[in-house]
């Protein structure tokens, strides 16, 4: 299948992760696009939020400017680099773009640039390096973020590029997004992984910064279009991880979306990412949060999964297994193809 696409269009990518086995069927490469329209307080990827290139500073990785001056030499204005105990600790300048060279020069990763301008062609080349694994496993490209669709034109061209290579496409999205921009994406996606963070609009606004009305309308729209949809819920204890919220979520999915959801995945929240917040100079909103003991929390997640299943939904605890759980034409896998070479 040949779908024309523009290989020269550029976008901002902050990570490309190969051998991803939990973000869609098979072995996949996840392309993380920068920028997000939500500000979930539990977000563990603060580097994904801004659509601009950012610099992260980890002074503990710096070996000291007495031993290494690579960043100072690369800086347009070395005085803008903040030092603490001889180690680089931050940037006193708004002109971040001009200091990206410091990250390129840093040998230890003490200065890290989050976000890189890449063309569709460059991304595709890296994605297609694992072509053999996709064809053996039914895997392919997953776009994630940030919000995967916020760089709309870039996302669309990437999906077309993947289509033209004949590999499967997944998009992980929060769906907080104008509906008319969603339409060109729909025919290019084999499987949507849609976040659904809270059913109550006020609580949704409290935890994510926006109401959920547009999200829910978009979800209805995507499901109505006949697309394959998996719902992902990051379950945060004491926030959205409550019996009430998950019951109303289950009821909405089962009753109003007519059970046309392929699967609901409950992703247990883990307190990660604090270091990254620190490195970016952003306050960690969950710093006061105390994680429940792992065992009781796992037990709760399993309980929620069982409870939601009683609504007739296919519910999985964790992002785990895809085999036998997805049955759409685009992602169905014939188990008998598993013979080696």
């Amino acid at each position, binding site marked *: 299948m040949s779908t024309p696409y523009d290989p020269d269009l550029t976008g901002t990518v902050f990570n490309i992760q190969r051998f991803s086995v939990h973000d869609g069927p098979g072995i996949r490469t996840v392309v993380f696009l920068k920028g997000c329209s939500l500000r979930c307080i539990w977000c563990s990827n603060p580097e994904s939020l801004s659509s601009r290139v950012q610099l992260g500073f980890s002074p503990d990785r710096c070996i000291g400017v007495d031993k290494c001056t690579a960043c100072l030499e690369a800086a347009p204005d070395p005085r803008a680099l903040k030092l603490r105990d001889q180690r680089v600790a931050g940037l006193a300048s708004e002109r971040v773009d001009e200091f990206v060279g410091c990250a390129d020069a840093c040998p230890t*990763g003490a200065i890290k640039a989050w976000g890189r301008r890449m063309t569709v062609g460059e991304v595709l080349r890296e994605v297609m390096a694992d072509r053999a694994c996709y064809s*053996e*496993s039914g895997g392919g490209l997953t776009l994630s973020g940030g919000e995967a669709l916020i760089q709309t034109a870039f996302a669309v061209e990437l999906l077309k590029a993947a289509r033209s290579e004949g590999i499967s496409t997944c998009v992980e999205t929060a769906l907080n997004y104008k509906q008319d921009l969603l339409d060109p994406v729909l025919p290019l996606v084999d499987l949507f992984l849609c976040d659904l963070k809270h059913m109550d609009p006020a609580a949704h606004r409290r935890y994510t910064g926006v109401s959920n009305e547009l999200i829910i309308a978009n979800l209805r729209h995507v499901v109505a279009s006949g697309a394959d949809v998996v719902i992902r819920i990051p379950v945060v204890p004491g926030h959205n991880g409550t019996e009430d919220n998950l019951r109303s979520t289950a009821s909405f999915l089962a009753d109003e979306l007519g059970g046309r959801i392929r699967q609901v995945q409950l992703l247990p929240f883990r307190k990660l990412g604090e270091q990254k917040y620190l490195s970016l100079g952003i306050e960690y909103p969950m710093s006061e949060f105390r994680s429940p003991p792992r065992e009781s929390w796992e037990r709760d997640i399993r309980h929620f999964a069982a409870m939601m299943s009683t609504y007739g939904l296919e519910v999985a605890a964790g992002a785990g297994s895809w085999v036998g759980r997805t049955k759409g034409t685009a992602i169905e*896998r014939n188990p008998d193809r*598993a013979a080696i070479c």
Partner: protein
Amino acid sequence: MAATAEKIFPDSKVTSLGKVGFDEDHWGVGVSGVVDDPSPFPRINRLRDWYLDECPYTIDAERALLVTEAYRRHEDDPQLIKVARALAHVLRNVTLHIVEDQLLVGDSAAPPKSCPIYPEFSYQWIVKELNELPMRDRPHNRYEHSDETSDALLSIADYWRGRTLSDAMLSRMSPEEMKGDFMGIMLYSTSLYHVAGVGHLVPDFGRLLDKGYAGLRREVQDRLDALTSDDPDAGQKHDFYRAQLITLDATSDYIRRYAALAASKAGSATGTRREELLQIARNCEWIAENPPQTFWQAFQLVHFGWSLIQIESNGHSVSLGRLDQLLYPWYRRDLEAGTTTPEFMQQVIECHAVLNASFMKLRDWVTTQANSGRGLGTTTVTLGGIDAEGRDATNELSGRFLDMIAHTRLGHPWIAVRFHQQTPPWFARKTAKAMRMGTGEPKIFSDRVIIPTMIEHGIAPADARNYVIVGCVELSVPGREYGWHDSAYFSIARVLELALNDGYAIGHEALGRLGPATGRLEDFSSFDELKEAYEAQMAYWVEAQARSTDIMDDVHREMKPLPYLSLLVDGCIEQGRDINTGAAPYNFTGPQAVGVGTVADSLAVIKQLVFEEKKVSAAELMAAIKADWHGFDALYHRVNGDKVHQYGNDDDYADELARYCTDVYCAAVEGRPNPRGGVYQPGVYTVSANVPFGMVQAATPDGRKAHEPLSDCLGPVHTAAGSHDRKGPTAVINSAAKLDQRRMSNGTLLNLRFCPSSLSGAAGVENLVALAKAYFTQGMHLQLNVVGRQLLEDAYAHPEKYRGLMVRVAGYSAQWADLSDELRRDIMSRTELSFD
């Protein structure tokens, strides 16, 4: 309920990381052997507990004393007759054992888990250790022994001085021939065959099953009777056949001794055990001469066939070959006749695992520190693959051996699975499920790459299709090849060091120039000049290594003929010649390159930073590695960072240099004639030799500090500053697939370490199969470590808690408790490939 590998028990004694089940979906992921009662058969669990908890590791003097007695008594006999009489003397006099619950018998000429001693190969190190650091006082890999045992072993020290193979080799090697070897700077090591037997082959068990020992005896007798005096080699052949008859008569007597022992034990046993012992006696009585009638007898005969090779010589990795093919007719026949059940035959297979695991080899302390592990090298069973006509050969028995891995989890025998285009999905999945348990077994091989490779190297197509795995990695034709597969480990990282340094070894300048004068990095005006130096050093050192190896080959041929082994290798009886003379149809010598990643990343650093970007001067880089990076912190982090090209990231820049550095090695090795009428063939893998080679080498430009391990097998570099592979397993396999593996006909190996969660569930199985399938278009061989980092860290802190924890070292699995500290740290530092 699947086990949770992550779950770490704080208690002092961990025997189980969770409940695992018997059916293949519940074998667990990343739990390795840290489980209780993995077998559905109580007998097997009892034997496993006995093996792990009760039976101590020991040393036994009996074989050494009997061999010494025979050598003394037959001092003047021809060498062939002398070695045959020595074997016969052992077989007729050694103490025999039958373990409670066991269905199979046949010791190693020592009690279970006891090391027999082979003084004829080398003895001075044993004497030295007994005097200076007795094996019972070692910090790990300890072997108990009484004062009587050490006194007995010391009592024969004088006899063996100057009489061993090792002594003869040393007397024939010039200082020039020793300077690069383990006796010098250890650029290469030929120590394995210097101190012990060769092994490394799969005998023709089909011939034994077909004819029985009496049939073989008739064949040899007929050949002897047919000798005529006009045959110029009649004298030599006469000795050879007589030697074979001596060993055959002793073999049948030996097996009948087991029959007698079983019968006598039956006398004091009751119930089912009494019946079993009586049947063991009848089995032995019958197969002492005749071809087997049942599956049980067939497996018993294969074990005798194999164990006598190990009593004759302590060569590593004498392997069992395609047992799913060889034993299938008996398996089928017994099932159809209804004379036995699949469950009983499964117990025979699992009993064999415990018996096989009971064979021990004493290694010297220096080798043990680097190449930990106690087994014989070891015994590999090859499953699946295609048959001689190219059809899928997988059968029910292939799956039964995979069940055995899950049910015993002792790491023995090793299992190799051959994958090909028509491998049935059930078998591919079952293999993946066995692999993800985390014991390191089985390892998987690609028919698609290996068969054409063997054919290109002169193996007939039908033989190539019938290939087997020998020991860790090596490819061989069963019953028709003497491959000397593990002849040497050869550090291409040391070759690069001499190429950077005008033939001097860093830190050993006082020894003078060791290799040819090829200039210094500081003097090279281009990267190509460095390549020329590397190629010149390579040619010189490969030649030096081969000269030493050829001397060893000569000594083995003259001093340690193998009349028993020669019964089971094509061409020997037919020509009246010992296997050591080159009587097998295929003869190779296979030395392995060590340090591919180290060299590739070093070359990349030099090419990129010194010659292209000119960010670092050659003088600065050389000063840095000579100073072990002290005072060069920024450069140290730069070469270990992600701003330089590194092998293992699917980055053509570095991967092409990996290909280059192995191509140069292969070109220097391939086709060189050996003394048995065959040729040298290169392999590229390290097993665990990357650790000792690293220990003796200065820092390298890739960011490795002095004494750190070199890169393992075909894997990427990992140094104290971090792993150089950053893009996960698909990038690693793509990088490895860019090497010209079809030149590496002695074998290659890529180890991948996975976090258990990335292989969990049905999807984990499918993804693992897909990954293997993708690699196997170009790659030969894949092994997995699937034990979580958290578990390994706890096992590092408390090794005593982890009974049964087997980990994949490289080429082989070993009990965690038996690994040296260096090796444990090396395994932990390998990248765990997971992207949850």
